[in-house]
């Protein structure tokens, strides 16, 4: 019996519920994206995930924000100069972060294959210095963690997948406050 060896990783972490926004524009109109990012920062909206790329003269940016910021984000998109067809909003997104990724195409490839084989949506992913952040359906995160454990071995006494606290950056306090 040929049982593939599991890949040892340090952990898996889930995000809270997110929304994913994709915007597209010609590279010559890059200021549309730059302005949107400034507006998002001014509204104190945190983006826990962002990717962008340039292909054939077009820029596509993908980013996620907490569900609680979705109304504010949609207002910013409405007042932006993006046309409706160049904006896609995906709701009920959850980020599954695995660490470390060991810069391993074997691990990454097997995760992609597993997600495809079990029909998990793969909205986007990106690597950081040591982690792989994969965006999928927030309602299926627990199921994904179960399936992933056929590929990876987690340490004993692994912390809960869902963080038990939230870090929020507040606006700058007024002098004397």
């Amino acid at each position, binding site marked *: 019996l040929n049982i593939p060896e599991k890949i040892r990783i340090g952990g898996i972490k889930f995000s809270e519920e997110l929304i994913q926004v994709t915007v597209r524009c010609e590279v010559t109109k890059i200021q549309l994206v730059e302005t949107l990012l400034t507006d998002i920062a001014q509204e104190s909206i945190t983006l826990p995930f962002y990717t962008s790329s340039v292909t054939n003269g077009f820029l596509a940016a993908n980013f996620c924000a907490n569900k609680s910021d979705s109304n504010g984000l949609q207002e910013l998109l409405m007042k932006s100069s993006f046309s409706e067809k160049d904006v896609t909003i995906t709701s009920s997104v959850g980020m599954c972060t695995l660490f470390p990724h060991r810069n391993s195409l074997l691990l990454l490839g097997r995760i992609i294959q597993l997600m495809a084989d079990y029909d998990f949506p793969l909205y986007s*992913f990106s690597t950081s210095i040591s982690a792989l952040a994969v965006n999928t359906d927030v309602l299926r995160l627990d199921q994904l963690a179960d399936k992933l454990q056929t590929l990876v071995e987690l340490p004993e006494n692994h912390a809960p997948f869902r963080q038990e606290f939230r870090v929020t950056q507040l606006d700058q306090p007024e002098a004397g406050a």
Partner: protein
Amino acid sequence: METIAVYCEEQVKVYGITHTFNVNYQQLCFPLSNLSYAGNFLASLEETGAVKRFEFITCQQTTDAVQLHLFTRTSEKSLSFTEDDAPSPKDHPFEVLGCGQTDLIFLHGPHFQDRYGILDVAVQALSSFDLLPVVTGCAGTSMYLAFKAGSGSAAEKVLKKTFLTPTSV
């Protein structure tokens, strides 16, 4: 229970800004229906020794296709998907939308994912010098920015002036 810590910084501090220049970049596209095969193919690249490790990888999905942005060290000579670069992996599922050398810059923490405006600070600073990353990937506490080969030094200089790094304290 809520705990509040007050911390002020005039210039955003980061733990570090590093670079890897002349990194191989492959912009690959494949139909969503080929996702399983593509995953298996990527895994096989490591299993067959065609590529040892990636530097950075990011993925975006369009309506019916998946775009992969794969960055590997130039020492990974055998990893090329274009027909005129031999040897290339056989039977790969990818359409090559672009490839070439890039300069990769990497910023890390603290807590980018919990703080608003960090990316905006980087983008505005780079934009003022007409420096546009061809690929950006921010997740966790990391920010990767890939520039056309030759632009990395200028971009790194701008970012090191924009952010406070441990070496400049």
